[in-house]
């Protein structure tokens, strides 16, 4: 008798009947095509721990989870690309609906209208926020979206050099270097002036071989770059402007599309998606109309059925690998559709006014902490044009401060000492979730009052 597993419905009797229909005497006959030398020779080809019951599994996984410090016990002032934000409860409830969660890519649109419409709404909202014409229905994350943007830029301009600011997220830099290694173009860093891109250096770096300039908005150090000025440097060239934007900040900041961006990418993690140790999050990818047919991955379009009723389908599929194979605009197949759905639920709940309120609270909180720290005599390395992140210079070694904060149930900021060539430089993030008590405690500890 086979041990019946809770996920497997087939019984020994079923197996017997099926084998009879197939016309073989045992399961082994169905595996006889696997060459002897590559086949399992032992009882178990693979050696794994014994199977756990559901109860044993949850007990064990809880033990593992309990070894991690979480936002339930600690106040996080750590951002640097991943943020601890408010997420309305309904986001999770919608994601748990199995009709969304357990569906595949909507290859049969007539049976996938819910997903397709939700992604169409997602595309619309991303275009609204970024000021762009066309958005796809998500990519793996913000950094891979940026890599895809570099591939698009070099292919569209037929130029081989991509310039990026040193004020770009360090992992985004790593990812675009990998993309460039693949497609064999060059990427070059432009230095800093304080916590922002050095305009003089950027100006002299741009030349006729420039495919694109990448600017983060706000940049990695929290500072809001002047996209209009940067776009003007590209005026007489074929080079295009790629902006990687925090979509929450776009509730307050002018839309990149209005300031000259050709491609806007980023991650919608701030919109209700759990930090989850860095993934799964949700890359977005938006372009001006002229690049529509070069966009990677799935795009949903509106159409009608044969009775004239509105419906939605995946469209412009001749860009994609499952149709075009080696001639596709990208190799992307899976995306992050479920998180795009989560993003939409978040935006639908928070809405037009709510998103501005939430962004304004981030601005208020971060500027409050900055002002308090400055009042206590600490040096703030950022100018005042920041959103919810800024850099402060600590008066003690970084790790010493981090450990002290942990003792007080605070997770401190990200170490940017090397990036800024400053001693003990901490990138702090203050979201709407932080209370005044938490902020005041942080200030007092950083100012050395809590020892």
């Amino acid at each position: 008798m086979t041990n019946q597993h809770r996920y497997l419905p087939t019984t020994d009797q079923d197996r017997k009947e099926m084998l009879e229909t197939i016309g073989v005497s045992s399961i082994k006959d169905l595996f006889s095509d696997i060459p002897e030398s590559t086949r399992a020779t032992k009882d178990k080809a693979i050696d794994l721990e014994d199977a756990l019951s559901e109860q044993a599994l949850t007990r064990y996984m809880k033990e593992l989870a309990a070894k991690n410090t979480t936002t339930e016990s600690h106040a996080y002032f750590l951002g640097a690309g991943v943020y601890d934000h408010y997420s309305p409860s309904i986001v999770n409830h919608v994601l748990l609906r199995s009709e969304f969660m357990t569906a595949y890519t909507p290859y049969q649109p007539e049976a996938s209208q819910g997903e397709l419409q939700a992604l169409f709404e997602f595309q619309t909202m991303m275009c609204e926020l970024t000021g762009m014409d066309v958005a796809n229905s998500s990519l793996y994350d913000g950094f891979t979206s940026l890599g895809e943007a570099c591939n698009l830029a070099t292919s569209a301009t037929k130029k081989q050099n991509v310039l990026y600011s040193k004020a770009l997220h360090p992992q985004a830099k790593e990812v675009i270097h990998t993309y460039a290694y693949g497609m064999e173009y060059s990427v070059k860093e432009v230095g800093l002036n304080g916590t922002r891109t050095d305009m003089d250096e950027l100006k002299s770096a741009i030349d006729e071989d420039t495919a694109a300039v990448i600017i983060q908005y706000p940049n990695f150090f929290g500072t809001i770059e002047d996209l209009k000025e940067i776009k003007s440097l590209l005026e007489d060239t074929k080079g295009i402007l790629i902006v990687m934007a925090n979509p929450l900040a776009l509730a307050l900041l002018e839309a990149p599309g209005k300031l000259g961006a050709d491609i806007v990418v980023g991650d919608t993690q701030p919109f209700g998606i759990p930090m989850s140790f860095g993934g799964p999050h949700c890359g977005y990818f938006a372009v001006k109309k002229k690049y529509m047919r070069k966009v990677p991955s799935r795009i949903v379009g509106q159409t009608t059925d044969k009775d004239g009723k509105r419906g939605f389908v995946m469209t412009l599929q001749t860009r994609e690998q499952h149709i075009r194979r080696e001639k596709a605009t990208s190799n992307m197949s899976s995306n992050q559709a479920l998180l795009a759905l989560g993003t939409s639920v978040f935006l639908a709940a928070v809405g037009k006014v709510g998103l501005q309120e939430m962004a304004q609270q981030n601005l208020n909180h971060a500027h409050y902490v900055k002002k308090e720290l400055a009042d206590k005599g600490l040096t703030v390395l950022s100018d005042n044009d920041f959103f919810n992140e800024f850099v402060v210079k600590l008066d003690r070694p970084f790790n010493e401060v981090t450990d002290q904060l942990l003792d007080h149930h605070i997770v401190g900021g990200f170490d940017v000492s090397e990036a800024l060539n400053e001693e003990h430089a901490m990138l702090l993030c203050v979201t709407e979730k932080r209370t005044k008590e938490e902020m005041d405690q942080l200030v007092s500890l950083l100012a050395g009052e809590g020892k």
Partner: protein
Amino acid sequence: MTAVYNDLLFEISRPGRKGYSLPESSVEKTALTDVLPEHLIREEAAELPELSELQVMRHYTGLSNKNFGIETGFYPLGSCTMKYNPKVNEDIARYSGFAQIHPFQPAKTAQGALELMYRLEENLKEVTGMDAISLQPAAGAQGEWAGLLIFKAYHEANGEGEQRRKILVPDSAHGTNPASAVVAGYDVVEIKSNEQGRVGIDALKAAVGPDTAGLMLTNPNTLGLFEVDIVEIAEIVHEAGGLLYYDGANANAILGKSTPGEMGFDVVHLNLHKSFSTPHGGGGPGSGPIGVKDYLKAFMPSPRIEKEGDTYRVTTDHPQSIGRVKGYFGNFGVNVRAYAYIRSMGAEGLQQVSEDAVLHANYLKARLEPYYDTPYSSHCKHEFVLSGVRQKKLGVRTLDIAKRLLDYGFYAPTVYFPLIVEECLMIEPTETEAKEQLDAFADAMIEIAEDAEKNPDTVTGAPFTKAVKRLDEVTAARKPVVTYQRS
């Protein structure tokens, strides 16, 4: 089906409604005009919807009712392994110790997460027969790309980077294979399948040479057939100086039966959202970890997780690495679910998974063989292909058969793929479907085959019972409307 919900968020929005609440903030307000020049301050608010909480919930419930998931019904989508996604794994991934942790928090405060990743890597090494695993790739296609960049780095390290510029891909391969080769900077050479639906040894021998970087192979292949000559294939490619890449999309057929490592592959990816039960989410997120043999370890994506005594740490000092392919640690939340699945199954359970998946596919194939053309007669692994050529002669296309299945309460198989089979239907039943379900599907397929002869209109006009009828995809592509147009 009279009252189908059909509104867009933007159509039910009214100014002034809201579906959220933020806490009162007691700190003073910062005026944007005090910190930013005017041209960087948003002039027009983004037109996002304004709705109450119930309206939002009802909207998405309405949409979900127009969507088909695994719990709605049988989902025989070939090469996609639409097996049951255990509910408890959703609970686990939502534990705050997994969901509410930051990738940059100090490693000493994330030991549980790092331990989980380390243990999952160990398990996947065992399952694949490889020597090291990276969990960073977000999906199969990204795993392919990372794997091919490893090929590239390896050949460069051997001074053969300039010389080896070609990736061989069988004509039955997933579309991602050639597409991934291109974004890794390679030229693609297609290998024709032989009459048995497998890689032709002669065609392969003719294609390999000093310019070969490697071969990408799915085994069992997309026709559901095991590449019986795999040992010889590996020898031919290796002797020519190339490497072998295993596309793990079809790994559900071989768990505990064989490993890509034993077959001779050098780099492997697995789709954790296929064989390892994590939900597909309507297109993602997935997770596509890669595994490599010892001699390729140095080129793997960075960072890596290492164990020292009882402590887990993140290491970044890998000078020969291809670098980073994705942010942070990959799709960690997906990896949590996959690990929970492996721990729920154990080695015996995984082996049973493959046995039942293969049994189910062969059973369905046997039941359908009298009614549809089966281009390849040998036993299949976890999936098989039918050809709708017989029905096409009656004026009924494979697309019609797919649409008609929707009316029976099933999702459709993968259609028109692989490209080498005319009017192809690719069927993968998975191990988690009960025999009654398989029989119901077979009965429906048989009835459709009969209708193709007697009542073709019931097939060509399908679907009749869904929220919409057959959609006009041609106009959608010719005149794209990809955002809501306000009137």
